[in-house]
């Protein structure tokens, strides 16, 4: 067989193959399974309810709460300034700029933590940064922030400080706790750094 015929046959064969396989323009998963195992183990995606309450009260502009529950549930109750992105539509284009960005800190929440974690895992595997999960979810939020229980008298001082903060937060956020005027600044919430989105470098080209 001549080189010419080998090239012709090769082109036709590969052309038919490529015409038949589905298109793959990008590799969707940026993180490998092994990398995900490490991330999940470190639990760095969790942010505590206390921290979120603190940021909410101080009106931290870089905080973005994302409610991944259904619109119905969102209507009934949602955290202040939260936006509703149900799990079923989390990958749709209109939310892309919210879940994949480099200026805000997204905190996903659901009633428990199951759905918020599902959302987080999807986004994380796509390589998106700055998405977090509210530890304990809304249920825990209600127990601790909205209706804080006074610690027993034998508790450590910091437990009381936490309780004071929660009560104050509860008042500020419209919960059932008594309103006290203790400054909430006692627990200085440390915030994970916001990872700036790596700009996709449009490669230069042309002649």
């Amino acid at each position: 067989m001549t080189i010419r015929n080998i090239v012709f046959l090769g082109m036709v064969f590969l052309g038919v193959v490529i015409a038949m396989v589905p298109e793959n323009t990008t590799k969707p998963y940026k993180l490998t399974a092994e990398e995900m195992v490490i991330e999940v183990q470190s639990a760095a995606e969790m942010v505590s309810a206390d921290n979120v309450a603190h940021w909410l009260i101080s009106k931290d502009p870089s905080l973005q709460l994302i409610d991944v529950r259904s619109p119905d549930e969102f209507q009934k109750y949602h955290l202040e300034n939260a936006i509703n992105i149900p799990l079923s539509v989390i990958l749709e284009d209109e939310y892309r700029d919210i879940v994949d960005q480099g200026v805000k800190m997204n905190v996903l929440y659901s009633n428990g933590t199951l759905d918020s974690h599902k959302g987080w895992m999807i986004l994380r595997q796509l390589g998106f940064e700055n998405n977090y999960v509210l530890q304990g979810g809304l249920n825990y939020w209600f127990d601790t922030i909205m209706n804080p229980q006074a610690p027993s008298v034998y508790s450590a001082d910091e437990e009381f400080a936490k309780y004071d903060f929660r009560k104050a937060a509860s008042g500020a956020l419209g919960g059932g706790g008594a309103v006290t005027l203790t400054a909430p600044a006692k627990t200085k919430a440390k915030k994970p750094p916001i990872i700036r989105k790596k700009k996709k470098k449009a490669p230069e080209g042309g002649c």
Partner: protein
Amino acid sequence: MGPLVPQEIIGANWNLFIAFAIGVGFGFVLEQAGFSSSRKLAGMFYGYDTVVLKVFFTGAITAMLGLLFFSLFGWIDLNLVYVNPTFLGSAIVGGIIMGAGFIMGGFCPGTSVCAAAIGKVDAMVFIGGIFLGVFFFAEGYPLLKDFYMSGSYGPLKLHEVLGISSGVLVLLVIIAALGMFKLGEMAEKKWPREEY
């Protein structure tokens, strides 16, 4: 994985070295194919030598297939590959002017560099002409700017326009190319040439 430099898998300072290495391969292949001879290149338009057609289309198709398969295997992120933006007006008129230059000069810029490398004086003169042409464009740029920017469609891809998958488009290009290769071979038989 790829492209390696835009993803910073290879440092950007390697980019120019890579450019040089790729250029060596480019020049070597062009010269081996006979693109250092203007008579061979011009033969394309008189039917006595269609090596341009064969090399050009085989090369383009190989790269198309390569890109799509690399993307399929996850070896390259096509979003990070530069796609020439389409400016319809300037692409057509620029192409027409280049076509006239091709039939008169017998080279295109890449092949003229390659031919100059092996001592073709006509290629060196051609390169001198290119410098002048660029100079004329640069000086006339204020007048040409509006037209230069007209008909902008951004990085538009042909299969998107046609509404087919990229794979099907490549297959169509392959079929069309095979037809042209056949025509070219027939033409070469009809107008035989002496070797030079």
